[in-house]
């Protein structure tokens, strides 16, 4: 991943030296050409073509913003409705993610999701304890967290 980006930069600089024009436009053109070259040579690398991962990161960021807006509408509804008809509680969520930064990212995503807030992470990094503002549909929220967030994070780290 990092090696491919470095190689792409190197190819862009090579293009600048071939053109004898040291402007950002030439760099950009060289970068695009290097991208095509790396895409053509992708079977010689041990990892995937790195643009897949860039796309996954952009998708994850969009997901972050979408969930933040949904979460706010949710809190708005709870706070402004006349009767406080909520059933809060803490439930456990098993996660398949392993490295520390993945779990941090997942915890941040869950905290910004409608109606959930991470209270604690178990010592072996296998379980997240999540406080839900309305626990009636725990199974649903576990499913949706697993399907959307975990998948999106795995797409980045795979």
């Amino acid at each position, binding site marked *: 991943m990092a090696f491919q980006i470095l190689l792409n930069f190197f190819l862009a600089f090579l293009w600048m030296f071939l053109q004898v024009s040291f402007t950002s436009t030439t760099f950009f053109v060289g970068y695009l050409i290097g991208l095509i070259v790396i895409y053509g040579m992708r079977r010689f690398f041990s990892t995937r073509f790195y643009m897949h991962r860039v796309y996954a990161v952009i998708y994850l960021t969009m997901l*972050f913003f979408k969930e*933040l*807006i949904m*979460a*706010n509408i949710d*809190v*708005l509804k*709870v*706070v*402004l409705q006349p009767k*406080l008809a*909520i*059933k*809060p*509680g*803490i*439930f*456990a969520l098993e996660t398949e993610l392993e490295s520390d930064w993945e779990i941090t990212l997942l*915890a*941040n995503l869950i*905290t*910004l999701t409608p*109606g959930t*807030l*991470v*209270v*604690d992470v*178990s010592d072996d990094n296998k379980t997240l*304890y999540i*406080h839900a*503002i309305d*626990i009636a549909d*725990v199974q649903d929220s576990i499913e949706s967290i697993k399907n959307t967030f975990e998948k999106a994070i795995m797409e980045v780290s795979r």
Partner: protein
Amino acid sequence: MTVISEWLIVIFLLFGSFLSLVAAFGLIRLPDVYTRNHAASKSATLGVMSILLAAFLYFYFIEGHFSSRILLGIAFIFITAPVAGHLISRAAYNSGVKLWEKSVRDDLQYKKKEREH
């Protein structure tokens, strides 16, 4: 162009201040520290972010000044606010703050009991 951007600025400002108001209202109204944390960590994040975005758009379109510090501020708030919410609720739980009495489920208490044994 200026008219559109002016409207955008107004909408972002009003939306942000409305969300901050709702966050404050939620702090008063919700029953225990965890549910209050929901209101504080979500509504306040998006509220402050949209107010900052309105400030950025104002300086960019009306004054013609690109303020990258505001963008950095938005990014930092976006990263740090959920972590702060998590730490506060974790500290509250570990120091023994009770859940609201109408709470229906608490998986974390088993973990705590295991640790005490």
